[in-house]
C-alpha cells in the first residue's frame, strides 16, 4: 500500500521522509516537482497540483495542507481515496499533537512525528489512527511534560498497550479522570450558496457539524436528542455513534472519545428553503475594449436579509479581480479594504452590519496599460457569522448521561457561518 511518505515545504524541499518498506530514493520526487513547476508555469494555485501522479514505477498521491505537501508513494493498486484520507488523518493527528501542523513544528518534534508515523502504519497498512490511543502510546509534547521527563528520566513512550486498543470502544482511552466533568457541544452550520447576478439564489444548502469537547470521567454513555431531527438530510457519524439507534429513534447514542472530536456532520438539503442572511447590491463595470479610458467602476452595498433576528458579524467580502487590473481605489463607510496586487484580491473587512446604515463601498478600478481587457465578471466570496443560532432551526432537545454517577456540566452552543458563499457579479 503506502510505501513511503515525503513531506515537502513551500520552497520545494523534502524535509522529512519515512519509509515503511524498502527505501525509495528521493529522486522519485522529481516527478512531483515537475508537476509542481508545470502548475506554476500555468499560473495556477498550489491547489492545482494533481493529487495522483503516475510515474513509470511509482504512483505519487499527494495532499496539500497548511502550505505543505504530503506525498505518499505507492507501487501497486490501492484505492486513491484510501491514501488521501489516510494522509489527512495523519495531518489531523499531527495537528492534535502540535496544535498546528507546519514545517517548524514538524522539524522541532521530528522524533515524535517519526514515532507517530511508525505507529500509524505498519508495512504500509494503517495500524492505529485513533488519536486517543496514540496519545496514550506517545505522549504529546508539552513544556511541563518535557520538564518532568528530563527530571525523572521517563520517556514519552508508553510501555504498555493502551487498553482502548483492545476494548470494544477503541476510540476512548481508559481510566479517564476529571475533577470538573463537562461536555460541550458546538453546533456549527455553514451556509453554502451561489447567488447569481440578479440576486436570486441558484443553489443553497446548509452543512452542519457537531463539534464536541467532552471531558467526562470513567466511561459515560451519552444520548443526545434533537427537537427536530428530521431536518437533517444526510448524516455521517464518528464511529462511536450507534447507527441503529439513530435509524430507529433519531437519537445520538454514544460513548464519546475523550477530548474534542467531531461527533457528526449533516446536511440540510435543497428541499427545505435555506435562509440567506445577507444580500448584496453591486455594480461592476470595466471600460469597453476599445475605449481610451483605463478605469472601471465598482460599487457594492451589503444589507441583512433573513437573519432570524441576529446581527450579521465578521462580515468579509473578498473579490478576486481579473488579472489585468492594476489597482483599486475605494472609499468605504465602514471597515477596511485592501487590494493585494499579486493575487489581485480586493478584500473588504466589513464587521457588523448595522441595518440603519448599510455598509457601502465605491471606487475605481485601474487597468494595466496596454493589457487586453476581457469582459469577465468576478464573483464575491462572502464570510460572515451569526452567533447563537443554527440557521436551519435545528435545536438540541436534551443530553443524558448513563453509566456514571456524577452530574456533568453540559453546554450547547450554536453558530452559523458562511461556508462556500458566492455571489456572482
Amino acid at each position, binding site marked *: 500500500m503506502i510505501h513511503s511518505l515525503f513531506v515537502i515545504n513551500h520552497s520545494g524541499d523534502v524535509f522529512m521522509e519515512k519509509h515503511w518498506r524498502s527505501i525509495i530514493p528521493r529522486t522519485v520526487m522529481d516527478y512531483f516537482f515537475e508537476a509542481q513547476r508545470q502548475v506554476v508555469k500555468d499560473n495556477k*494555485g498550489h491547489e492545482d497540483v494533481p493529487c495522483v501522479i503516475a510515474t513509470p514505477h511509482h504512483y505519487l498521491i499527494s495532499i496539500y495542507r497548511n502550505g505543505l505537501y504530503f506525498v505518499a508513494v505507492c507501487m501497486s493498486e490501492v484505492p486513491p481515496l484510501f491514501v488521501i484520507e489516510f494522509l489527512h488523518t495523519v495531518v489531523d493527528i499531527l495537528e492534535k499533537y502540535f496544535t498546528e501542523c507546519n514545517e517548524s513544528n514538524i522539524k522541532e518534534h521530528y522524533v515524535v512525528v517519526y514515532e507517530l508515523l*511508525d505507529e500509524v502504519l505498519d508495512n504500509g497498512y494503517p495500524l492505529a489512527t485513533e488519536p486517543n490511543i496514540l496519545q496514550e502510546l506517545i505522549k504529546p509534547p508539552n513544556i511541563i511534560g518535557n520538564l518532568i521527563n528530563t527530571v525523572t528520566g521517563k520517556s514519552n513512550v508508553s510501555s504498555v498497550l493502551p487498553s482502548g486498543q483492545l476494548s470494544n470502544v477503541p476510540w476512548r482511552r481508559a481510566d479517564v479522570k476529571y475533577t470538573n466533568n463537562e461536555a460541550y457541544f458546538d453546533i456549527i452550520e455553514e451556509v453554502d450558496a*451561489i447567488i447569481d447576478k440578479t440576486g436570486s439564489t441558484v443553489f443553497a444548502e446548509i452543512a452542519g457539524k457537531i463539534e464536541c469537547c467532552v471531558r467526562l470521567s470513567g466511561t459515560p454513555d451519552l444520548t443526545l436528542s434533537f427537537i427536530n431531527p428530521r431536518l437533517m438530510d444526510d448524516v*455521517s457519524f464518528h464511529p462511536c455513534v450507534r447507527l441503529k439507534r439513530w435509524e430507529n429513534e433519531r437519537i445520538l447514542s454514544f460513548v464519546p472519545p475523550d477530548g474534542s472530536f*467531531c461527533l457528526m456532520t449533516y446536511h440540510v438539503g435543497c428541499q427545505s428553503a435555506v435562509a440567506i442572511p445577507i444580500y448584496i447590491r453591486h455594480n461592476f463595470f470595466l471600460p469597453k475594449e476599445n475605449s481610451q479610458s483605463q478605469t472601471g467602476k465598482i460599487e457594492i452595498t451589503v444589507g441583512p436579509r433573513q437573519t432570524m433576528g441576529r446581527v450579521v458579524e465578521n462580515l468579509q467580502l473578498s473579490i478576486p479581480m481579473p488579472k489585468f487590473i492594476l489597482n483599486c481605489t475605494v472609499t468605504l463607510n465602514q471597515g477596511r479594504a485592501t487590494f493585494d496586487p499579486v493575487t489581485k484580491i480586493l478584500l473588504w473587512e466589513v464587521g457588523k452590519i448595522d441595518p440603519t446604515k448599510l455598509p457601502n463601498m465605491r471606487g475605481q478600478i485601474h487597468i494595466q496599460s496596454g493589457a487586453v481587457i476581457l469582459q469577465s465578471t468576478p464573483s464575491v466570496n462572502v464570510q460572515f457569522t451569526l452567533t447563537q443560532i443554527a440557521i436551519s432551526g435545528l435545536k438540541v432537545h436534551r443530553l443524558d448521561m448513563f453509566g456514571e454517577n456524577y452530574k456533568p456540566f453540559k453546554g450547547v452552543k450554536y453558530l452559523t457561518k458562511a461556508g462556500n458563499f458566492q455571489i456572482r457579479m
Partner: protein
Amino acid sequence: MASGNLGLTYGGQEKTPSLSGETEFAAEAGAPGGLFHADYKRHDDLKQMLDSSKDSLKLEAMKRIIGMIAKGRDASDLFPAVVKNVVSKNIEVKKLVYVYLVRYAEEQQDLALLSISTFQRALKDPNQLIRASALRVLSSIRVPVIVPIMMLAIRDSVSDMSPYVRKTAAHAIPKLYDLDPEQKDELVMVIERLLSDQTTLVVGSAVMAFEQVCPERTDLIHKNFRKLCAVLVDIEEWGQVIIIGMLTRYARTQFTDPNINGTNHSEKDKPFYEESEEDDEKGKQTESLVLDPDHRLLLRNTKPLLQSRNSSVVMGVAQLYHHLAPREDVAIVTRALIRLLRSHREVQTVVLNSIASMSVNRKVQVNVAKKFILCVLTYFFVVLKDMFEPFLKNFFVRSTDATQIKLLKLEILTNLANESNITFILREFQTYISSQDRDLVAATIQAIGRCAAGIKEVTDTCLSGLIALLSNSDELVVAESVVVIKKLLQTHQGSHGDIVGQMARLVNRITVPQARAAILWLVGEHCEKKRVSKMAPDVLRFMARTFANEQDVVKLQILNLAAKLCLSNPKQTKVLCQYVFSLAKYDQNYDIRDRTRFLRHLVFPSTEQALLAKYAKKIFLASKPAPVIESVFKDRDEFQLGSLSHYLNSRVVGYMDLPNFPAVAPDSNVRNVESPRPVIPVTSLRGNSASAPSKGKKKETFYSESSSEDDDVKDESGSSDSKSDSSSEMDSDSAESDSDESSSEEDPDDSVDISQQNIVRLSPSLSPSPPAQRLSRTLVIESSSESEYSSNSSDSDSNDSDKVVKSSRMPPPKSNLDLLLDLDVSDSAPVMASVSGIPLGTLASTPITDSSVQPVSAAYISTRPTELVSSISSGCGLQILYRYTRSINLYSPSMVTIELTLVNTGNEELTEVKITNKNMPVGISMHEFTTLASLPVGATRLVTVGIDFGDSTQNVSCDLVASGRPIKINFRPSVGELIRPVTCTEGVFINEQGKLKGMNEHSFSITNTLELEDMKNISTKIFRTTNMASINSSDPNTLRFAGQTLSSKSLVLVTILVGVNPKLTVSCEKMIIGSMLLAELKEALKN
C-alpha cells in the same frame, strides 16, 4: 507489570545523567537547523554517546540519528554502535533503535542478525505491546536469512492470547510473503486461522493479509462470509475499506447479476411493456426475488457504512453498490457521495472522478431504456432516471474551486444534461463563459457542443449561441467555439453555408492553429455550397500567402483545402493549388511533404496513373461520418470504480479485474456453517468457529443492542455491555473473552456452541502439523489428573455439573472433546457459565514454544482450605475459606486459581453474593465468580476466582458483597503459587539452567546437614511450598524441580544438592521471583 520492574531497577540510575545532559539538550534544541552535518567528527560524537552508560545520552544520540534519517541523510555507518543498544531497557531508546534497524537492516544484514535474539526473547515477553513490537520489527527488517525465524514467530503469534499481537502477526504475513513467496502455502494456512478469528481488531488485518497473499482463494472466505458481513460495522475504518473491496470481488464470483433480468426484459420483452404496466411490475418482482439471501445480507450490512466519516469507506460502499446492487438500489449511495464533495480538495477530485464515470454509465442506461421502451414506462423512468440528477446543483462550479475540480464538475453537468434540465444547465454554462479561468471557459464551450450534439431540441439554440460567441473579444473563446461549431456542423445535417461563410471571415483574425485548421477544413468541406464557393478561393489565396509561417495542423488543412478546391473549382484555383503544393514540397515536416506527394498524384495525375485520379473527387468530397462527441469517461467501465486504475484510466500494477457475474450462481451452501460435528476434521471445526457469529458474535459487538433482536435480549446485552466495558480494563484478554462470557451468560443454550468453538480454536494453536486429536487427548489426560486430585471435595459438584451440562442440551458424548467438556465442568458448578465459555481456547493458546518443556499437573494439592475471613469478622455470619487448587485456571492460564469456600454460619439467608469494587494494581487482573443468587443458612458453596498476579506478589484486595454488605478480602499470593509445574528432560533442565546464570541465579548453602533419607521429605516440603514438578535426576544426590511463572512463562528451576555441601539453587529469569522463592524455600526447609 514489566514497566513496574523497569522503573524499579532503572529509575535510580537515570536521574543523574539526565540532569547533566540538560544543558546540552537545550543547546541542541536551540539550533535545530545546524544539527546535522554529515561530518565524521559529529558521528564519532554520536558513537561515544551511544556507547555511554547513560540512557539520557543514548536517547539524545538516537534522537539525532532519527533526525538524520528523517531528513534522508545517511546514518548507516553508525549501525554497529546503534544495534548494540537494541537490548536497552529504556523503552524510548529501544523504540528508536527499532526505527533505525528497520531502516538500515537491509543494507547491513550480517550485523542486523546480532539483534535477532533480542527479538526472539522479546517475543515471549509478558507485555503484549513488547511482544507485538518485537514481531513488527522482526518482520520488517527484510533480511532473507531469518525467514524461518519469522515464519516461526508468526505461527506462534497467531495463537497469542492478545488480539493486538495477533493483529501484528496478520500484518507480518505480507511482509514475509514479499521476502520469500515460497512460504505461501504455509502462510495461507495461517491466514485461514486468522480469518476465523473472533475479534474485530484482528479480522480487518487478516483480510488485508488475505488480499496481499492469496486473493484468489475465495474458498477461504465462504465460511467467514456471514461473519464478515455481521461484524463489518465494528471493524476499524481502514479494515472496512479492505474488506469491502474483497467482498465486492467475492460477491462477483458467487452471486448472479442482479440486473440481468431487468435488461433481458427490456430487450426481449419489449412488446409486452408496450401493452401493459402489470408486466412491468412482474418484471420487477422477479428481479428482486432472484437475489441470493447472502447477496442481500452483504448489501444490507454495508449500507450503514455510507454514514462513515471516512470518505474511503463511503467510496468503498458506493463502488460495491455500483458493481453489485440491483439498479434501483444504487441510488442510495448518491447522497453520501455528494456529501464527500464538501471534503478536502483531493477527496473532491477523486469522488468527482468516480461520479463522472458513474454518470456516464447511468446515462447510457437511460438511453437504452429510451430506445427500447418508448411509450409507457413511467415506472422504469423513475428507476433509471439519473441518480445524480436531483443533485445537479451540487455540481455547479464555484470560482474558488481548483481548475481540475471545475473541469470535472463541468463534465458531470454535461453528462447529466437531458431535455428537462438543459435550459437550466445552459444558463449556468453562460456564466462560466465569462469566468476568469481560461481552462474553464474552453471546457464550457466544449461542453455546450456536447450538449448540443446530444440533445436535439437545443442544437439550434446552442449553435446560435456559439456563433454569437464568435464575436467575443477573447480569442480563446472564439477559437474554441470554432472548433466546436465545426464538430456540430458535421453532426448536424443541413445547409450551413452562411455559418461557414461567417467563419471563413474569421481566418484573418484568429491565430489559434486549431481554430484556423477547423475553419479551413469547413471551408473545404462546404466549398460547393452557394455562399462558400465564392469565398473559398479567396481564403486559399490568403492562406497561401502565410503558408510558410503556419503551424503544421494548419498547413495540412491548407493542403486539403487546396486539393478540394482544385477538384471542385479548377478554373480559379489550379495555379494556386500548384503553388501551395510546391511550397509544401520543401517543407521541413515530412508528414507535410508526404501528404503533398500523395495529393499531387491524385489531383494532378501523370497520365498512366489516372486510374485513381478519376475517383479523386469522390474520395475528397465524400460525405464523412460525423464524429461522436462523448465523454472522456466513457471507457472507464472496465476498471473497478474508485480504484487507482480507474482514476488513472490505465492498468496499475497489482490491479485485479473484477470478475464478471457467473451465469449460474455457485452453490450457496458453502457459506452455511453447519452445527458441530462429532469428529474433528480441522477444517470443518474451523467452520464452526466461524458460524458462531450467527448467534454469539452479534452480541459481542459494541452495537449489540442495536442489532435487530428481541427487546428483552436488547436490554440484557446492554447491561452486559457496560459490564464488559468496565472489566475490560482489567482483563488482559478482554475484548474476546469478555464478550464470550457475556454472551454465554445471556443464554445458556449458546454455551455449548461456544465451548465447541473454543475447542476448535485450540486445535490450530498447536503448530499445524500435529493433528488436533493428539492435543485434545493430552488435554484430557491433564484435566483428568487434575480432577483426581480435586475430586475429594467436589465429587458431588461434578454430578451437579453433569446435570447442568445435560440440561443445556448437550449432545451425548461422542468424542474426546465432549468427554473433555464434562471433565472441565467438574471443577465447580457455579462457574459453569465461564467454564464452558472460555477456558479451552485460552488454554490452548499457551505458547508451546519449546516442545521439550511441557506443563504437567501439580504434584501436591492442599485439600485443607485456609481461613480468609472468619464468620465473626465478616459481620454477617459468612465464613470464607480459600485454597489454591493448583489447577490451570479455566479463564486464563496466567491466572492463579483460588477456590473459595463460602459457609453461611449466620442465621439468615445471604443473597447476591458477588465480588465488586476490585481495586487492582496495574498489570493485575481478576476473574470473579458468577454471582450467587442466594446462600441459605448453613449452606456451603465452593466458588473459584482466578487472579492474574502478573508475576508479582502484590496484594489484591476487593469487596465480597453479600446481601449488599461489603466484606473486605485480601489475597496475598505466596510466590510458590505463581508457578506452574512443567516437566522436561534432565538435559534440557541443565541446558536451561546454564542459560540462567549470574543475576538470574540465587543460591544458598544449607547449614543443617541433610541426610539422604530425607530426600522424600524434602520433596514433599518443596511441593507444599511451591507448585513445581520434580525432574528425574541421574545423580542421586541432586533433586531438580521445574516450573514456569504463570504470567510470563519464564522458567523457574530449583536444584537441591544433598550431601557434603548441601546447596539450594533457584534459577529464574525474573530476579524478584527467584529471590523470593529462594527465601520461601529456605523457610520451608528449615522446619
